[in-house]
């Protein structure tokens, strides 16, 4: 059995930790991690709940392959109702924490209620207890990990925590584990902070054993690893350049949203790219990039480890930032850089370090700074409101705002609201580059049409990781489609969304899909997990998860009106590049998408669809 068959229920109000058997029927229907935790969440939580109230719940969930020898087996997800969006939130992280939770014998932890005082959860195999968090409350995620390891005299412990941003309930606060891996999006860290839950510290020595067919599993995992190794993207591009390999590619195709999506190409893109991270700096003769790093079990190793130039203005007299730490991934480099017009690689790296240190999502943060800069440019935010001018392209402004937002200071408290609330407050809601309250990532939907539909229909608000049609429209994976046309994109988006839901529920990383399809995942699941895990079953499970999330959002009050894009993307054509003159053709794709999904014209799953997916109970 690949599942540990055991979950931990933590009632923070009462201070109790209670083991429960995993619902194995649900595991057969929803696999694990994203799907299974969403099933538990939807079953237990009122969709109308205030995300930051004690009645909301927060689930840490692993998949059946987390902590196994399958490549990329690091993943765990944090599932809750997101405060940034009001929609279902499911944020996925790598590092080493997720596997450790499995090694301690747990598939999931469900947190409910709110602790009267700050606490952290300490798990040592079967033993789980809530302990006072006095010595770590008010500390960064970096300090929290160091303090807890020292306190428990356990250097092998793995820690997942919120920083000062989560405590301050910054609406895009992240949960951070292993110093620089994060369940980043939708504000899951704010929910954790609202519950007075500072951290989860785990040590597991039981391991993951008893997969259904050990020899078959080892063979399937080895075969799939070879596919990753032999693929140009996962075998060479990602280890060498990381996801940052995309910066120049997306800029050249005119789909790099710049200065709050006013432009689609950034004139300094090459200065914040993967290639720039490899270049030796004139100041110290060293490159920004130190090395690549893998998450647990990962044979790709796309992670970036960077060091900041010690003479750079951001870190002068701050030796705590001189060591190596998590460097820029593509989305962070885009949001901190192109979205704000800042082309200073070292400044972006510093901002990224601080985002990790105190736990905020660099995508929503950078995009919100971009929106604030536009509001300033239009005269709607004044210098007196902030204390300094919010000029597009200023590295000083970006890094100052990063510190202020992470620590809940001054104008940082306004940035902490996210772009939707900030722009509404200043009378220009349409300037928030977001869907369902969550900011876009690094692909412009005028130059990559499928992404417009993927964003508009994403169940957690704008997101590239719910249906990454970039793979097909830009990279030709699994087949090349024309990024400028809307024809065929409804089917493409649906296919990516359903397949991704399966990957996110397995314990493995969605980046494998640069090389794998479901057909590469399927033999690993079939060998590891009891029951039928045929391709047909997986397709059904993916679609079932997508519809379950949709049902929750509809019940929470979302309608087809929320499957929309800011009018800038549907009315202001791209100014330059290959997509010049194009706007997003969302209106052409959405009705076809609803029909393919078996939803009504207003985006509600029909009775027949729900019955087919077994969601009509």
């Amino acid at each position, binding site marked *: 059995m690949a599942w540990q068959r055991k979950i931990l229920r933590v009632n923070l109000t009462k201070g109790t930790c209670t083991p429960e058997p995993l619902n194995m029927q649900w595991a057969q229907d929803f696999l694990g991690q994203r799907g299974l935790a969403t099933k538990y969440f939807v079953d237990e939580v009122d969709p109308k709940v205030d995300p930051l109230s004690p009645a909301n719940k927060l689930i840490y969930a692993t998949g059946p392959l987390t*902590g*196994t*020898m399958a*490549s990329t087996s690091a993943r765990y997800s944090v599932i809750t109702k997101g405060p940034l969006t009001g929609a279902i939130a499911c944020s996925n992280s790598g590092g*080493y924490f997720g*596997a450790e939770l499995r*090694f301690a014998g747990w598939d999931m932890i469900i947190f409910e209620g709110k602790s009267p005082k700050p606490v952290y959860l300490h798990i040592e195999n079967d033993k789980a207890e809530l302990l006072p968090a006095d010595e770590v409350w008010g500390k960064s995620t970096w300090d929290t990990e160091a303090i807890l390891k020292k306190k428990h005299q356990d250097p*092998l412990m793995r820690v997942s925590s919120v920083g000062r941003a989560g405590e301050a309930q910054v609406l895009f606060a992240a949960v951070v584990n292993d*110093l620089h891996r994060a369940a980043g999006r939708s504000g899951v860290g704010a929910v954790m902070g609202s519950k007075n839950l500072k951290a989860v510290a785990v040590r*597991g*020595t*039981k*391991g*993951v*054993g*008893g997969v259904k067919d*050990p020899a078959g599993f*080892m063979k399937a995992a080895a075969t799939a*690893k070879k596919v990753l*190794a032999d693929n140009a993207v996962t075998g060479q591009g990602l*280890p060498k350049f990381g996801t940052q390999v995309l910066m120049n590619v997306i800029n050249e195709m005119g789909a790099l949203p710049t200065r709050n999506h006013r432009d689609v190409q950034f004139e300094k893109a090459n200065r914040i790219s993967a290639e720039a991270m490899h270049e030796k700096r004139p100041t110290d003769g060293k490159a920004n990039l*130190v*090395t*690549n*790093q*893998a*998450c*647990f*079990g*990962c*044979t790709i*190793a796309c992670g970036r*480890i960077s*060091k900041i130039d010690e003479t750079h203005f951001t870190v002068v007299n701050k030796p705590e930032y001189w*060591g*190596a*730490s998590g460097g820029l991934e593509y989305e962070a480099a885009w949001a901190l850089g192109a979205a704000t017009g800042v082309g200073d690689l070292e400044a972006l790296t510093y901002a990224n370090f601080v985002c990790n240190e105190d736990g905020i999502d660099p995508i929503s943060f950078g995009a919100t700074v971009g929106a604030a800069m536009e509001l300033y440019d239009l005269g709607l935010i004044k210098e007196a409101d902030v204390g300094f001018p919010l000029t597009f392209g200023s590295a000083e402004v970006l890094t100052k705002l990063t510190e202020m937002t992470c620590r809940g200071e001054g104008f940082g408290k306004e940035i902490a609201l996210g772009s939707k609330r900030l722009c509404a407050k200043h009378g220009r809601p349409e300037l928030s580059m977001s869907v369902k309250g969550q900011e876009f990532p690094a692909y412009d939907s005028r130059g990559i049409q499928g992404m417009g539909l993927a964003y508009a229909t994403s169940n957690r608000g704008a997101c590239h990781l719910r249906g990454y049609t970039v793979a097909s429209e830009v990279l030709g994976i699994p087949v090349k489609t024309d990024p400028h046309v809307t024809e065929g994109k409804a089917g493409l988006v649906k296919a990516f969304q359903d397949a991704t839901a399966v990957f996110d529920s397995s314990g493995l990383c969605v980046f494998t899909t640069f090389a794998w399809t479901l057909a590469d995942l399927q033999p690993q699941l079939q060998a590891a997990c009891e029951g039928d895990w045929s391709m047909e079953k997986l397709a059904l499970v993916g679609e079932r998860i997508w519809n379950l999330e949709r049902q929750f959002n509809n019940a929470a009050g979302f309608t087809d009106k929320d499957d929309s894009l800011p009018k800038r993307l549907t009315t202001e054509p791209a100014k330059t590049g290959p997509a010049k003159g194009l706007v997003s053709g969302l209106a052409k794709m959405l009705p076809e998408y609803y029909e393919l999904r078996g939803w009504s014209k207003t985006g509600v799953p029909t009775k027949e669809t729900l019955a087919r997916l077994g969601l009509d109970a």
Partner: protein
Amino acid sequence: MQKSLHLDPAKCTGCLQCEMACSYENYGVFNPAKSRIKVFDFHETGRKVPYTCTQCDEAWCLHACPVEAIKVDAATGAKVVLEAVCVGCKVCTVACPFGTINYVQETGKVQKCDLCGDHPACVDACPTGAITYVDANWTGLERMRQWAAKLDTQPQA
């Protein structure tokens, strides 16, 4: 011909596939806590270093054992713990200068790398070639080759 495990930290990404392979080979479970090879992450410098027993000729663990529970595998040169003989006294863990023989609470015995009977599972699992199993007399061969390549003494074409 004996072979040695050769560790190249520069190639290590910290994925811990070796730790899972080791525990799976010896205990049938994916469990880094039971691995005989450990990867250390020196995050301040970004360096990851795999480390395990190097099978000393002067085997301090073997000499310290009061019950002769550690034997030399004549074919591989590995110092192998005989679980049936080991009494769990842990004196070997004190004697080893490198910390690479350790006690296992669950079994009440010590464990160390035994080269998996000449087929080390960690080597097969390593995706980057950071752990290789090479001629014991020539563990420096690859590094020599790299330096030799820098000696550009060929006439320019």
